[in-house]
């Protein structure tokens, strides 16, 4: 017989009986948890990539100082990709009255391939997106150029040998870059207008770009084709290169949320394993009969594998629908972090989710089925000959392999996966031991309680293994919620409690040298301790030990490049402030003031790979100075005092342009006096640290909310573990309840026993969760954050109570029907 047909017939029947409901629901939850994360991060990733692509105005850009061969464009077109070219060079634009250096950008049709230009009819007018480009003889210009030349649309300007009409003002170009000062304002014209203008001499500083965009597969193929063909001086840029830090943050969030979802998968897996075990037990007779009627072992196996596959596909699809709906809510919760409209979710994660459904079901549901098909046909005659259970190690290995496979697929990181598996197994072992101790510890209380409670205790202890699994499942679910909800707040509060009462909370930057005294007086007059001023001199690191930084490879630790490539603030100080400790070398003496020395913060030194005695060359306002590293400092950033990575002795930089910064502590009610300060000194920028802290906290709260939301799946999976356990004991419970009632117990007494059982089970799980969360919190606080941990016992009590009630109610609801059945009916059915 066609195994698929039999599978379908059996499924139809099982579906009607509701026996597979728990298994299917668990699979839906598992796939739903994973796919909600998949859909949500896919949307955010798409948005980030789109922004990255916009900053290139293409998917791939080839840049060169020389003309780019037409063959590169030809290759792109052959792959069905769009192309455009741009040519940029500086040139002076003139009107009869004035002249202004501009960055001329000559473009071909199609530019920009990604993102759109925003233009307005007049300077500073209302801007709108456009797909058009300047017509022949026309140019568009940035407002800065329009302003500098004192012209407006409709006016004529001279570019090289040719006269153009300004027709539009560009308010936004996707690839305009981020610097507002250094690059000359942009003027856009048609590529074919360039010839008449006779602008390009052989020595012109020209930058050529070939823009390429299209489908992802074709773009990848194009990159692989042209990358080996690039000549020296030609550079290929793609979205990867253009990715901002945000993309990395998305990757990290994706991994973390996936790990959170994985807890739900694990619990759902346990529910699936329990439900599959029961299913296999129920199917033992069927297999014996099938074999007796002549079915081969392989035929039986395929029949059940086909059933599992059908279930996996159906539940997987339902899980994807659930996940699709869930991601919308997830992203709504974190909308302030993401802060923009996202593209619609693509269906790209769907096939993966479906595959994950199959892996989960195979990992947890297949082992009992493997045992089932080994059922001896003799069972048709002798009921005592049962199925042949699969060895425990095989069951656990298959489940572990499934979890490992999902981990590796979801995180794409073998090392992380192994780490998570290892620590997860360790954690599970500890939780299991704790649960076992609690479950068997219950036995002690058997004597001192009434009949209902004794019956409840007996039920838990007798079904020891199942009880432990349930206590673990709920304990884990509650633990993660407690860690996020309670421990996070506790840690934050403990940290805030550690900060000095009068830690500065208002920073003022951009104070000009001649405003220093005025600002100090301002505070003195208002009875605020006049703050210390600290100098900031903008500089750029250009060389280490005489070697230009451009020739040094900083790839590796993420922030190294930032230290090396960004502008940095140098400051000077004579005295070492309280929040600094010299860990290497010596702080300078007054005799050394004015010497070319520098003190580096520990981390900065590590990132740059430098130590005592190394020489750093800085460019300050076009002048080059070289300083020798004289000491390395450790900085207590928690002090909230202004601190600098790089500090030099007084007397070295005083001649360079500097601004000053300072900080004060102002109680909340006195904060309004800063408005007066700003009114008096409009150039000074006030940074309200309290406001930033509040913002940071709100971001943390939202992020935690997102993770908690994913953990709701965990709780749902925990409920399914309980339902699976109740289901597997249904006949037993029905019989017990019937026997008790036959022996004269009132229905209320039987129900009280059930209430006692699940309330106790909930109490055990909640105790496990609260104790584990408290220990984790304490470990995190003392070992990692070095805080004095303070916790509020009230919260733990609430956790204990809520957990107990939740499990108690769920269990009673699930068992109620069994207890209600009239005893005679039950005894007859048996």
């Amino acid at each position, binding site marked *: *017989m*066609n195994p698929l*047909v*039999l599978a379908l*017939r*059996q499924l*139809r*029947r*099982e579906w009607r009986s509701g026996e597979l409901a728990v298994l299917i629901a668990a699979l839906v939850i598992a796939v739903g948890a994973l796919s909600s994360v998949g859909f949500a991060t896919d949307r955010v990733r798409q948005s980030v990539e789109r922004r990255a692509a916009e900053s290139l105005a293409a998917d791939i850009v080839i840049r060169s100082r020389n003309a780019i061969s037409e063959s590169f464009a030809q290759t792109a077109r052959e792959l069905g990709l769009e192309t455009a070219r741009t040519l940029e060079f500086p040139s002076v634009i003139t009107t009869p009255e004035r002249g202004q250096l501009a960055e001329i950008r000559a473009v071909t049709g199609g530019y920009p391939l990604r993102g759109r230009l925003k233009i307005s009819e007049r300077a500073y007018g209302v801007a709108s997106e456009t797909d058009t480009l300047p017509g022949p003889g026309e140019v568009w210009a940035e407002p800065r150029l329009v302003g500098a030349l004192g012209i407006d649309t409709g006016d004529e300007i001279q570019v090289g040998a040719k006269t153009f009409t300004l027709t539009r003002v560009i308010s936004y170009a996707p690839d305009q870059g981020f610097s507002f000062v250094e690059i000359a304002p942009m003027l856009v014209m048609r590529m074919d207008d360039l010839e008449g203008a006779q602008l390009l001499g052989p020595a012109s500083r020209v930058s050529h770009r070939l823009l390429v965009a299209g489908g992802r597969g074709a773009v990848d193929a194009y990159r692989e084709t042209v990358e080996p063909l690039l000549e020296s001086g030609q550079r290929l840029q793609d979205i990867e290169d253009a990715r901002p830090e945000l993309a990395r943050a998305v990757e990290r969030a994706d991994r973390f949320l996936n790990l959170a979802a994985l807890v739900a998968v694990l619990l759902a897996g346990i529910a699936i394993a329990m439900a599959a075990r029961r299913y296999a037990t129920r199917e033992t*007779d*069927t297999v014996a*009969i*099938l*074999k*007796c*009627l*002549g*079915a*081969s*072992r*392989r*035929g039986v196996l395929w029949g059940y594998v086909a059933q599992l596959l059908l279930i996996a596909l159906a539940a997987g699809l339902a899980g994807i629908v659930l996940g699709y709906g869930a991601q919308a809510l997830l992203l709504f919760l974190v909308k302030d972090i993401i802060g923009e409209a996202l593209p619609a979710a693509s269906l790209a994660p769907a096939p993966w989710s479906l595959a994950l459904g199959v892996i989960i079901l195979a990992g947890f549901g297949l082992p009992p089925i493997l045992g089932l098909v080994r059922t*001896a*046909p*003799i069972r*048709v*005659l*002798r009921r005592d000959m049962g199925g042949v259970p699969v060895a425990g190690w095989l069951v656990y290995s298959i489940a572990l392999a499934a979890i490992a496979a999902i981990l590796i697929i979801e995180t794409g990181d073998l090392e992380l996966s192994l780490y998570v598996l290892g620590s997860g197994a360790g954690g599970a072992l500890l939780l299991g031991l704790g649960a076992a101790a609690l479950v068997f510890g219950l036995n002690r209380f058997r004597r001192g309680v009434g009949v209902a409670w004794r019956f409840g205790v007996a039920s838990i202890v007798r079904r020891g293994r199942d009880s432990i699994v349930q206590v673990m499942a709920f304990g884990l679910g509650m633990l993660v919620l407690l860690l996020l909800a309670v421990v996070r707040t506790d840690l934050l509060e403990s940290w805030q409690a550690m900060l000095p009462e009068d830690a500065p909370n208002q920073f003022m930057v951009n104070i000009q040298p001649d405003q220093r005294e005025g600002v100090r007086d301002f505070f003195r007059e208002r009875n605020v301790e006049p703050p210390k001023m600290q100098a900031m001199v903008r500089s750029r690191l250009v060389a280490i030990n005489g070697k230009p930084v451009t020739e040094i490879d900083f790839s590796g630790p993420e922030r190294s490049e930032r230290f090396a490539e960004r502008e940095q603030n140098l400051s000077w100080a004579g005295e070492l402030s309280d929040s600094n400790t010299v860990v290497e070398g010596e702080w300078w003496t007054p005799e050394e003031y004015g010497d070319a020395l520098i003190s580096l913060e520990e981390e900065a030194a590590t990132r740059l790979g430098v130590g005592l005695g190394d020489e750093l060359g800085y460019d300050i306002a076009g002048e080059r100075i070289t300083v020798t590293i004289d000491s390395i400092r450790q900085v207590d950033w928690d002090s909230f005092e202004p601190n600098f990575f790089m500090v030099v002795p007084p007397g070295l930089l005083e001649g360079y342009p500097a601004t000053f910064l300072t900080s004060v502590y102002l109680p909340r009610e006195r904060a309004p006096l800063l408005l007066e300060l700003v009114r008096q000194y409009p150039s000074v920028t006030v940074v309200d640290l309290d406001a930033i802290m509040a913002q940071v906290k709100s971001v943390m709260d939202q992020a935690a909310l997102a993770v908690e939301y994913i953990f709701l799946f965990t709780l749902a999976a925990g409920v399914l573990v309980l339902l699976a356990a109740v289901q597997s004991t249904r006949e037993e419970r029905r019989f017990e309840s019937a026997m008790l009632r036959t022996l004269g117990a009132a229905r209320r007494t039987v129900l009280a026993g059930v209430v006692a059982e699940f309330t106790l089970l909930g109490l055990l799980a909640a105790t496990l969760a609260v104790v584990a969360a408290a220990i984790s919190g304490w470990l995190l606080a003392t070992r990692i954050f070095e805080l004095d941990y303070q916790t509020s016992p009230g919260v733990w009590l609430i956790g204990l109570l809520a957990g107990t009630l939740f499990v108690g109610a769920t269990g009673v609801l699930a068992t109620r029907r069994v207890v209600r059945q009239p005893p005679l009916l039950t005894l007859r059915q048996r």
Partner: protein
Amino acid sequence: MTNSGKDALLIVDDLGKAVNSPEGRLTILSGVSFTVSAGDTIAVVGASGSGKSTLLGLLAGLDEPTEGSVVIAGSNLNDLDEDGRAALRAERVGFVFQSFHLLPALTALENVMLPLELAGDRNARRRALEVLAEVGLAERVDHYPNQLSGGEQQRVAIARAFATEPKILFADEPTGSLDTRTGDRIIELLFDLNARRDTTLVLVTHDEHLAARCDRILTLDAGRLQAAA
């Protein structure tokens, strides 16, 4: 013990079964030999625990003997693996059980079609409907087992057993779960179909009334065959 050896359908030779138990090795069946000719009806009787079910299991190849052999229609079961024995059953053997053993997930029709489909019969549906009509259930073919009475379930089981026109039919206490009147009607049906199809019937029972209707009675006592009645 041989009787008409020329068309022996079932040859049992020195069959024995022993298992390991907590009390040591336990012999359930020992030195059982007999031959059954095509078309014969045989009753195996004996007290509870005398080894009847074990013998039936060995005869049908549901279990493996620890000594001796069973040959069905020329095939020695010892030469076949589990799947080989299953294939032999699909082709030549029918079963009727005390507790019916219908698959609860399948309708009466689907239950009867099952062995036909396992044997690769392309006309499974038509044949199944014919046999169900023959046992008087033409009206109830789409009912599930739990929607049928015990007698009806056993009729379905008998239809399933005869559907493949097996050479040999094993019945294990076929009336054990039924009241006397229903049981009698089931017996009539069983013997009637058996006679019409010329099937060999091996019946395990402790119902002497039923045993008496068979051509031959084999009595088991503590795992050994007593003299033929």
